[in-house]
C-alpha cells in the first residue's frame, strides 16, 4: 500500500469531519463532500484536503471528486439510503477498492452485505459494547462473590 491514500468522504457531520481531520493530519489526500457548506466549519484549521458542496447522489458530484482515482470511500451521511446508494455507485461503477458505508438500521445492514457493500452499523456496535460491559461487570461481580 502507498503511504498516502486518496480518500473520499461523503457527509461532513460529526463522524465524517472527525475522520477527515484525522486522516488529513496523518498525510492522506482527502476530499469531503456535503450538500451543506456550513458543515465544513467542523473541519480543523490544518485540514489540507478538498471540500465539495453538492449532493453525492448526483453522478456529476462524484465525478467531480475524481472517484475513479480513490483508494478508499466512506459514506457517512445521516441518511442510510444515501450512504447505501453512493457506496454501491463507488464500488460498482467507479471500482473504488475499499468502500465503507455507515448504516444506522441493523436490518438494512444484512441486505447490503448481500449486495457486496461493507457496512458499519453504529447501533449494532454500541449495543454490543453495552452488552459486553454488562457481561464483564457481572463476571467481575461474580468473581468477587465466589
Amino acid at each position, binding site marked *: 500500500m502507498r503511504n498516502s491514500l486518496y480518500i473520499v468522504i461523503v457527509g461532513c457531520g460529526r463522524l465524517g469531519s472527525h475522520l477527515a481531520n484525522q486522516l488529513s493530519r496523518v498525510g492522506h489526500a482527502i476530499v469531503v463532500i456535503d450538500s451543506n457548506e456550513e458543515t465544513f466549519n467542523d473541519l480543523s484549521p490544518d485540514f489540507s484536503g478538498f471540500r465539495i458542496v453538492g449532493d453525492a447522489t448526483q453522478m456529476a458530484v462524484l465525478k467531480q471528486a475524481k472517484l475513479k482515482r480513490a483508494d478508499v470511500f466512506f459514506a457517512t451521511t445521516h441518511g442510510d*439510503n444515501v450512504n447505501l*446508494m453512493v457506496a*454501491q*455507485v463507488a464500488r460498482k461503477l467507479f471500482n473504488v477498492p475499499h468502500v465503507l458505508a455507515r448504516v444506522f438500521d441493523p436490518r*438494512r445492514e444484512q*441486505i447490503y452485505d448481500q449486495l457486496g457493500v461493507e457496512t458499519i452499523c453504529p447501533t449494532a456496535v454500541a449495543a454490543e459494547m453495552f452488552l459486553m460491559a454488562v457481561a464483564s461487570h457481572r463476571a467481575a461481580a461474580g468473581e468477587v462473590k465466589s
Partner: protein
Amino acid sequence: MKVLMAGRGKTLYFLCRNFTAKGYTVVIINRDREECVHLARQLSALVVCGDASDATILKEAGAMDADVVLAITPNDQDNLVICQLASIQFNVPRVLALANDPDNAEIFEKLGVSAFSTTHIVGSLIEQRASLEQIINLMPVGEGRVNVTEIILDADSPVSGKLLKDIILPKNALVAVVIRSNQPIVPRGDNDLLAGDRVVLITLPENHGAVLKAFTGERK
C-alpha cells in the same frame, strides 16, 4: 395483479386511481400520516403509513405476494433501496424505480434495478409533439443513446424521389424501414423514397438534428 407503490403527491394519486380502475390490487406506502388519511379516503387502495425502505413496512404492505413494486418518491436513494429490498428480500418479480435525476436511470440499471426518468420521457414527448410536424414518433432506446424516429415525407422533402444510395447521410445513421401504403419495406440502396412514405430512422442524439434536416430540409 398486485402493485405496491411508494411515493406521494398527484402522480401517485392518479396512477393509483388508474390502476384500481383496471382492477389491480394496489397498496400505497407513504410516510406522511395526513396524506395517508387523505389517500385512504379517496382511493380504494390499502394505505400503509411508513418508510418503504424499511423491510418491516414492506412486509406489512404485503411485499411477499406483490407482482410489482413501483418506487416513485422524490428521493432517488430511497427509490433504489426500496426496489433492492423488494427484489432481494421479498423476491418481488418486477421492480421499477423513478430516477428523479435523469443520470441515475442508467446507474440504477447498472445496479440491477429497472428505472425510468420522467425528464427523459417528457423531454422526448415535447420533441416529438412540438418540434417538427413531420415527426410522428420518437423513441429513445439504449438509455437514450439511440433514437428511433418515424417521420412522414412530404413533397417539399429534399429526398422525395431520390434513391437511397444518392442520399448523403451523416455517420452512424440508418433508414431502417420505409412504410409505403401500409407496406413496410426494409430498404436497400436502390430503393427510392417518395412523398407520403413513412420512414423509420435510427439516429444518435449527436447526429439526430442533421439527419432530420437531410430528410425534411430547412423549415421555419
